[in-house]
């Protein structure tokens, strides 16, 4: 028995050893891949994020990931740049507006071309604006009250004139989000009366610094650089950029550390602090225009009670918000964030005060509490989850329980689109599209109901009237006090818990160059132009 088992045992050990060595040698020979090397030469940057891109069509939709690609594939008349954000010439090299603010004339640059080779001319401008206005989706809301397609006039090949219905001081500030499409290409792919929407979902007809290379829905989106981009390469030396979906933030961090991703967008504040200490990693901590609110459903069963809203708003521990971000956040002192023109510090904005909270609760319909509120937040977003946990703790003295419901972003937006389905509290990061106060104030106008930032269904006719009046006024001296009044009224009505301005946290490998930043972009939105690799 002994020699027999020894022999077979020996054989087994040998087999295991060989297998083990083979596996280990595989491990040793395979170094972690450096993201920017490709088999056929040329360097590709890899950006990791969690938000998928559902469509590329500039007239249909925009969010952080979508607009990142739209900004890379398309151009607009002007572009936001710098901190504080400023409107810079892009497809338009100069412009002038009339005294009454109703007529704007743009002169286009010479030599701008679409990827198809067609020139970017005034016809294309008119076509693109018309398309967005007629489809009435995406960015259309920004201008639809003021501009009709008939008001866009092609003066000559390189001059286009916009005749607004009413004066609109903020007109220019919205233009960077209106991307210009190639009429010939879109026209060639129209199906029935869809205006080309089906084709533009996964294809592009732009003139931007990048072309679309691969659109792998739900997995990755690859663009390649247009080497002869009409505006020059902006210092970029890469072949292209891959936006890869990595949903777990811990996996994003691991990818960054191993060199599998060059830029990551969604690290939690704790993960961010850890990678900041690591070798070979640079981080960017920038202030942003993004506001955060725990929006109350003011038409819902519980939150229609203003005293209850005030009670919850005073029970909340605002300092915890800053602690969650490891200090990289500043509490809001107004519904407007600090960079918005005309923002004032609203006196009496709620802070943590349990006594006051109880006072308000006593005046509400549920003086003893005893109710359960629903808190909906974005699944996977750790900071919002933490806020929920803090809120559960904070509401205990009021004898109110909280049910935390994580939802994917599309499901959250869908629920928040109707007052019957919106939750009592919804965690919403809202980045305004410009520094003009109208961009934020308008979120409190009934027209915003149904949008993700309008889940409060706020309804105050006086505020609505003020907002509309301020829009059409061109003189800033007259507008400013109106906006001050609006801010005070909104705070008084308490349609949400006004949160904080979090700093943008982006981590990237130190060989990434050309990473620029402007506060008006959304939290995980990146400007591809000028990104490169250096040492």
């Amino acid at each position: 028995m002994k020699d027999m088992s020894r022999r077979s045992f020996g054989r087994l050990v040998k087999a295991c050893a060989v297998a083990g060595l083979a596996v280990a040698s595989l491990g040793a020979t395979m170094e972690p891949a450096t993201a920017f090397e490709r088999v056929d030469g040329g360097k590709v940057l890899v950006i990791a994020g969690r938000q998928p891109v559902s469509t590329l069509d500039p007239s249909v939709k925009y969010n952080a990931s979508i607009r990142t690609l739209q900004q890379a594939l398309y151009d607009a008349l002007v572009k936001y740049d710098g901190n504080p954000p400023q409107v810079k010439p892009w497809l338009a090299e100069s412009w002038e507006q009339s005294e009454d603010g109703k007529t704007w004339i743009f002169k286009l640059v010479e030599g701008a071309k679409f990827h198809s080779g067609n020139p970017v001319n005034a016809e294309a401008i008119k076509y693109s604006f018309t398309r967005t206005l007629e489809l009435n989706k995406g960015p259309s809301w920004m201008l639809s009250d003021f501009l009709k397609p008939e008001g866009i006039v092609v003066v000559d090949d390189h001059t286009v004139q916009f005749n607004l219905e009413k004066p609109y001081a903020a007109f220019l500030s919205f233009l960077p989000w209106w991307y210009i499409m190639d009429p010939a290409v879109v026209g060639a792919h129209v199906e029935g009366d869809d205006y080309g929407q089906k084709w533009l979902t996964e294809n592009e007809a732009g003139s931007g610094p990048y072309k679309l290379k691969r659109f792998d829905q739900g997995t990755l989106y690859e663009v390649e650089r247009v080497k002869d981009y009409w505006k020059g390469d902006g210092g970029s030396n890469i072949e292209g950029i891959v936006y890869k979906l990595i949903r777990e933030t811990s996996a994003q961090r691991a990818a960054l550390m191993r060199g599998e991703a060059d830029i990551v967008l969604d690290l939690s504040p704790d993960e961010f602090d850890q990678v900041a200490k690591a070798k070979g990693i640079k981080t960017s901590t920038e202030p942003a225009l993004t506001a955060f609110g725990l929006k109350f459903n003011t038409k819902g069963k519980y939150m229609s009670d203003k005293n209850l809203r005030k009670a919850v708003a005073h029970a909340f521990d605002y300092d915890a918000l800053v602690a969650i971000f490891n200090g990289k956040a500043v509490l809001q002192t107004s519904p407007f964030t600090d960079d918005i023109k005309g923002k004032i510090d609203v006196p009496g904005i709620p802070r943590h005060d349990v006594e006051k909270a109880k006072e308000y609760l006593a005046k509400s319909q549920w003086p003893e509490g005893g109710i359960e509120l629903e808190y909906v937040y974005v699944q996977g977003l750790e900071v919002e989850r933490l806020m929920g946990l803090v809120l559960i703790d904070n509401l205990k003295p009021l004898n109110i329980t909280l049910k935390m419901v994580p939802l994917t972003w599309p499901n959250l937006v869908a629920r928040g689109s109707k007052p019957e389905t919106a939750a009592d509290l919804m965690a919403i990061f809202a980045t305004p599209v410009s520094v003009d106060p109208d961009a934020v104030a308008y979120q409190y106008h009934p027209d915003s109901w149904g949008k993700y930032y309008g889940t409060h269904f706020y309804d105050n006719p006086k505020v609505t009237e003020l907002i509309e009046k301020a829009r059409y006024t061109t003189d800033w001296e007259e507008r400013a006090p109106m906006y001050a009044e609006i801010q005070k009224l909104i705070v008084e009505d308490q349609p949400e818990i006004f949160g904080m301005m979090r700093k943008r946290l982006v981590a990237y490998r130190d060989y990434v160059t050309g990473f620029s930043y402007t506060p008006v972009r959304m939290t995980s939105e990146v400007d591809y132009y000028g990104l490169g690799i250096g040492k």
Partner: protein
Amino acid sequence: MTDILDTPAEPTFRERHASTIRTMRLYARTFRNNGAAMIGLLIIAGFMFLVIFGPSIVPYPEDALGATHIEQKLQPPSADHWFGTDEVGNDVFTRVVIGARVSLQIGLIITGISMLIGVPLGIIAGYVGGWVEESIMRITDIFLSIPGLILAIAIVGVLGPGIGNAMLAISLVWWPGYVRLVQAKTLSLKSAIYVDAARSMGASKMRIVFVHILPNCLSPIIVKVSMDMGMAILYAASLGFLGLGAQPPFPEWGAMISVGRNYLPDWWWYSFFPGLAIFLTVLGFNLLGDGLRDILDPRGRE
């Protein structure tokens, strides 16, 4: 002096239950000799100690109920916090200990519901026979051929995440095991001599079931329950890990690992200790169950 004609004295407790006592001593001795089973017993004893005395001995009881101390978050193991703190500053040790109680509740509820459904069905199937048995056994087979975790996920998926729904879902996955076991045992008992005797004496079906069959099914059921406790806890932890079971701030081990995953590798203690706890508990129940099976049902195999 006692006389053969005297009525015998009332038998003492020891005499009346002599055979039972002898059996128990045999069990104890066999069990003691089984090293692995003793380890299992030790572990489970420790577990039960935590379950019963846990809430009184933990240093930060409010941490198990959702108190938040964000300033203290993510601190490594130290004298103040033996297992470190988690992302809202809760003491991980406290939550792991309270989690023992939670796990036991989960295990008991799941095995309880499964038994409630499975045992009666098994007895009916075994005793009644015929097409009733066929149909019950076929349905059981179908359930058993769906991988358990997938079925549980599907059920929780439609009902919505939450510890209640998770327990319900796992019970629905678990009951077929009991049906199989009890049916087989009932089948073999049905033709036992004493059952025949009872029937011939005119005992009703109900009486036969409750007095003769059910008690004799008990030992394999006990073995199965002790093995199952560990597995039920593992299943619940798996669902918790996937985010479908316990929701925060509920101190369930699987849910803790799920959140802790985001904090690897720098804050490893958050995932490590709950995982260790699951491992030891399931191991303990398994070893205990093995030991029980060796003494109660020596010829049974997995």
